[in-house]
Every structure is written in structure tokens, then in C-alpha cells.
């Protein structure tokens, strides 16, 4: 479980983990302060017979500063979080690096279909490889994926890559990832898509260049000369 909390199977997973860490520190600090003050006040100001509560309107200047200072400091924290969040977002979702290979990912009730380029590394040619529920990619390669759906909403999610994107019927959404570790990872569907939503899982296999070439060769449709 600990590995899952910090796993970084893709190039940007670490950025997302760091962002989460920053938010944890900044907002965790406030959470602790608020809880500590709350409990301290509860223990400190218990009712004692004969002792009256103080009369504080909270509208005088020196009282209001207890509101204004946290207000400004939280604003600062917010700005910091916004800046980091948008930087990560921009990097992951908005500004796609040049693709080294492009694949199609198609969601349907309740399976994932993948179309990968064959040896020519061009999508839409005869040697394309089509698989169901198993995606093979090469490590350290920038992939673009074209995400589609044929029926309802699905969501292409690779938790270990910190990658997630909805698939929408009628639309093609382009995203990217760059695997940094070899191995087998879960691909899940993260959008309610009917009674099979809970079984809509597939595998992502990240291979070294040689392994991947071998896999491509052995899966190229028969009768297609790879050129």
C-alpha cells in the first residue's frame, strides 16, 4: 500500500506527488492550528460556577486582527497552491510534449480496446495492432493517446502513472504519458459506466525497447508485411 501512495510510473507522477505534498504541508498546518486552538479553548474555558464569560463583540480592531491575519495568510497559501497546481496541470494536460508514438484508446461497455502502431510507428496503417484489455508500451517513450468511447462515459485511469482522463462518446481527447518503469500496471475505468463498471479493468505492460519490438513483431496481423 505504501508503494501505491508514492508510486511514480510515469514522468509526471512525481510532479503530482510533490504537489500533493505541498498541499498537505500548507493546509495540514492550518488544520493542525485550527484543531489545536479549538481543543485548547474547549479545555481552557470550561464553565466554572461563579465565573462569568467575557463579553467580546469581535468587532473592535484589536479583535478583528485575529480574523484578518489568518485571512491574509491563507490567501498567501492559496496563491502558492494555485501556482503549483496550475503548473502541474499545464504540464500534464495542456501542453503536450512531442509524441514519439501515438495510440488509440477506446472505451466501451465494459472493456478497453487499444490500437497501437505496428513496426512503422504510424497509426492508421495496415500493420496496426489491435488488442483488448492489454496495452503494451515502450519505456521512456512519449506516448500520445487518443481517447474515445463508443457508448457511455468511461475514464482511462492508470493510478500508478497518476494518469486519468474521461472518455466521451463523440469526442476525441488527446493526452500523453511517458512510462519510466517497466512492469505491469492496472488500468481502471474510473467513471460509472453501468453494471460492468466494477470489472472494467485491463493491463498496461511497460517493456524495454527490445521486448517491445519482439511483442510488436509477434502481434502484427498475419499477412501484413512490415515495412
Amino acid at each position, binding site marked *: 500500500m505504501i508503494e501505491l501512495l508514492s508510486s511514480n510510473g510515469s514522468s509526471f507522477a512525481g510532479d503530482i506527488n510533490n504537489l500533493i505534498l505541498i498541499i498537505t504541508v500548507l493546509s495540514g498546518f492550518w488544520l493542525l492550528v485550527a484543531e489545536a486552538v479549538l481543543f485548547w479553548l*474547549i479545555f481552557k474555558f*470550561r464553565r*466554572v460556577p461563579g465565573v462569568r464569560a467575557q463579553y*467580546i463583540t469581535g468587532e473592535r480592531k484589536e479583535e478583528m486582527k485575529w480574523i484578518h491575519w489568518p485571512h491574509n495568510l491563507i490567501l498567501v497559501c492559496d496563491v502558492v497552491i494555485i501556482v503549483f497546481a496550475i503548473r502541474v496541470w499545464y504540464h500534464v494536460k495542456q501542453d503536450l510534449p512531442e509524441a514519439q508514438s501515438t495510440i488509440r484508446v477506446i472505451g466501451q461497455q465494459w472493456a478497453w480496446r487499444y490500437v497501437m502502431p505496428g513496426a512503422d510507428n504510424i497509426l492508421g496503417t495496415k500493420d496496426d495492432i489491435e488488442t483488448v484489455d492489454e496495452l503494451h508500451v515502450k519505456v521512456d517513450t512519449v506516448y500520445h493517446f487518443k481517447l474515445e468511447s463508443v457508448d457511455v462515459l468511461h475514464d482511462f485511469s492508470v493510478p500508478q502513472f497518476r494518469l*486519468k482522463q474521461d472518455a466521451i462518446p463523440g469526442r476525441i481527447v488527446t493526452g500523453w504519458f511517458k512510462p519510466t518503469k517497466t512492469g505491469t500496471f492496472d488500468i481502471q475505468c474510473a467513471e460509472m459506466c453501468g453494471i460492468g463498471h466494477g470489472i472494467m479493468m485491463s493491463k498496461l505492460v511497460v517493456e524495454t525497447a527490445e521486448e517491445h519490438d519482439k511483442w510488436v513483431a509477434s502481434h502484427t496481423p498475419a499477412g501484413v508485411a512490415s515495412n
Partner: protein
Amino acid sequence: MATSHAEHHDHHEMSFWEKYIFPLDHKVIGMQYLFTGILMGVLGAYFSYVFRMQLAFPGTEVPLFGLVTSAQYNSLITNHGTIMIFWFAMPILVAAFGNYLIPLMIGADDMVFPRINRLSYQIFFISVLVLIASFLVHNGGFGGAWTAYPPLSAKAEYNLTPWGSILWLVAVVLEFVAFLLGGINFITTLMNSRARGMKMNDIPIVCWMIVLASILFMASAGPLIAGAAMLLFDQTIGTGFFDPARGGDPILWQHLFWFFGHPEVYVVFLPAMGIVAEVITTFSRKKLFAYKVVLFTTFATGILSFFVWAHHQFIAGIDPRLANIFTVTTLLISIPIAEMLFVYIATLYGGAIELTTAMLFALGFLATFLIGGVTGVFLGASGADIYFHDTYFVLAHFHYTFVPIAVIAVFAGLYYWFPKMFGRFMNETLGKIHFWGTMIGFNGIFMPLFFTGAAGDHRRIFDYSNFPELAVSSLQNLRTLATICVVITILFQFVFFWNFFYSMFKGKVCTEKNPWKANTLEWFAASPPPHGNFPVMPEVYRGPYEFSTPGRELDYWPQNEKA
């Protein structure tokens, strides 16, 4: 001047039928909403028990239910979410407390439109029947999540619940209509029917909050009502509003839904904050710290809440540039809410805190809601939401907001106003047992789920053993822990129900009008208040939180007490 209202009604003895089944009295209508809401809450809690058992012990027979199929699982969570929000949280927080408290606290004898009020409950009641019918029809209840995203929700060939999804949608629309009618009543009553002398700053916070919540609801629900009509036509007669092949757009529904959906979470949040304000001021004998700041932050929250909705859709395929704007607005909304919470905490400073059960629940609300609020910041940061979206982290976030709001704050309110409502006290010892059981149980349910979520558990999955990464025992142990805590929490609710119903009939009689020595006007009426509420219509001379005023012998100063 203020006339006696009671005598007027004496010559008209009301039958049981008129008094309890078709009442016009705001208090009875409030009670109808309360008890219907509690019943629906029990149903929602039962659903959560069933599907949590399935998650902890997949594929085994769940006691009191049986085997859970994936279709049933989906329907259970969908209707759990829908019921808990629309038929439990809203009816109790907005309608029950709103109806019961607003006229009493502003010194009126009833709502301004009693008949519209009754109509509101009747429509609400029909919506309950329609919703329950939706579970019983052929192929079972709707299972497309409470967000009902099309195309799944729009076509029976996808969701496989031809009737369940239609009835579900009709029930939700009826519920909306009921709350629009109720809301108009709350708003006009507060605006127009306050007691003589009650200025804007003398209105108790809870009344402000419920009315502002009604306004938020009214301003945000419109597009979704239109959208619901569109979806209903998609389901029933085959239009293509949300069908991309025919030019429609599934994303449009998401916008319609969340444009409503986000303000909606503040629709339930604000009344809970209102209840807590009344309870903590009374039991710490303190003036509310900076009343005006509370109002300003509430207004700010209300306005900002219309600018953040797309944070639910960050990765749903909206344009990534749009997400940046919504990240900014979402994070900004943490400021007014933090300020509001800090003001409440500051109110305790220098107080004379008495830890009654109501006070414990109110403080428990503050302590736990903070966790829910702070985890919202993780989700509002678009970059982090890429990972967290639709995981149990989101789920734990919103249960850490909803349960404090709809369960804990509601308990605070019920323990606090019980003597007024029923003229008897609830048992404090049982109350404290209930408090600790609920708090420990609730934290035990959802604290582990933050971790399973952060480890990658996705929502709405009926059996994790299909996912190798998630089928590991360390995660399964946390899931089981959560489930055990659900059972514990639910068992402790029996303490509450015993206490509640026993005290209603046999509890210690509350002979005083004002047992907690509070200031607001409802404590000036008899317990329980008769039809017409007040023997003499009260006048107001000061704000609602004048506790421990220097130079007075008593440490409270009722709003209606002359000088």
C-alpha cells in the same frame, strides 16, 4: 397592537386529520419533514451498510439483505447518495429546521403562506413515494450514480433500468419543486414578517443561513430543472439532447448538474453552520464573535459558490484552459469558509463552556468539518485532482463534510431544540454515549478511506478483487475496518432512537420556556409552542447573542426583554 392569537383558534377544534395529516401549522409541517427525513436517513444508512458489507466481504451473503449483484450495488450507492442529499440532508436541515425555527425565531405566528407550505410537503411526500417505487419496478432502481451522467442515464440499453431511471429522475424533479415552494416561503417570511424591532443584525444566524441556502438553491436549480426535462425526454421519447451522435452533448449535462451541484453542497452546509452558531453561543455564554463577519463570509461563500462548479469536471473532458480558472476560484472559496470557521472557534475564547450533548455535537461538527474542508483543497488544485478524481479520497472528503453537516450538526440541533419541540428533555447520559459512539465510529469509517483512496481505490466499484493492485490485503484490511465502523456507528444510533422516542413521551418534563437560558425568541414561546406560537407577539430590542453582558445580573438577555 400585538393581539392574542390563541383565543382566535379556540373555537375551532381541529381534527387529528387536519392537525397532523394536512396541517397548516409550520411546526407540524416541520415535524413531517423531520420524521420523513429521519426515515429516509435510516434507509440511506441501511443501503450504506449493505454495500459496505459487500466491499468488506465481497460475494458473501449480507445479513438482512442477501447477495449483492453488481447491478444492485450500483443502484444501492446511487440511491444512497441521492437519498442522503435530497431526502435526508435537505429535508432536515433546510425544510424541517427552516419550517420549525424561522417563524418562531423571528417572532411570527406562522409562515406567510401556510397552504403553499403544506403543498410543499405534499409534493415532497409524493417524491418519496416515486423514489421508493423506482426500487421496485422491473429491473430495479437506477444505478448510474447520483450525478446521472448521460448517455448512461439517458438510454435504457446502456443502464438496463428502463423504469428505474425515469422514476428516479421524476422523483428528483418533484423534490426540487417542493423545495422551490418551501424556499419562497422561507425567504418571504424572513424578509417580511419579522417581529417589530428586529433589524437585519438582530436576525439569528440560523435563520439567515437557511434563507440564504434557499436563495442559493433557487438560483442554481433552474438550469438543472430544465436539464432534467431534457433528460426525461431523452429517456422517454428518444430525443437527443445529450446524444453526441445527434448533435447533443453529454458534457452539457455535467455543467447543468454541477452548476447546481456545487451550490447545493453549501445549501446544506449553511444551515448546519447556523445550527452550530446557536448552540455554541448558548453553551459558552458568549456573544458570537463578529456577527457581521459571519454574514459577510456567508454572502461571499454564496456568491463564490457559483463560480467553482467545474472543479468536478477537471478531467471530465472540459477544455483544460477552463480548468485553470476554476482552480483559482475553488481555492479562493477556502478563504470565506476558513474565516467563518475561525470566527466560530474564536467565539469560544473567554467563554463558560458547558459540554452538554448538543454542545458536544456542535464542537464535534467544527472539529470534523475542518478535515472535510481542508481535503477539498487537495481536490480543488487541478494538478492533484488528476490523481484524486473519482477515488475514495474524494469520497472521504465529502463524507467528512456531509456527515458533520447532515448527521452531527443535525444531532446538535435536535438535542438543543428537543425541549422546545416536545416539552421534555432527552437523557444526557445516553446522549453522551451516543455522541462518543457516533464520533469514534464515523471517524473510523472515513479516515481509512482517505488512505485507500490515496492508494488508488476508485469509487463505485463493487468488488476490488478484480484489480490486482487493489486486491492486496493491506487495503482490504482498511476497507474491512471501515465496514466494521459502519456497523458500530449504526448500532450507536439505536441509543439515539431509544433516547429520542422514549424522551418524547416519557422524558423529564421541561416546565420552563427557556431551559438553556438562551436569547432568541423561540425560547419565549411555551414548550411545545401552541398553534399561533406566542401568547403575545414579541417585540425585539437587541441582537440574538447578548450573553454575559457586563453590568447585568443575568448572563443572558432575551431579545424581547425590554431594557
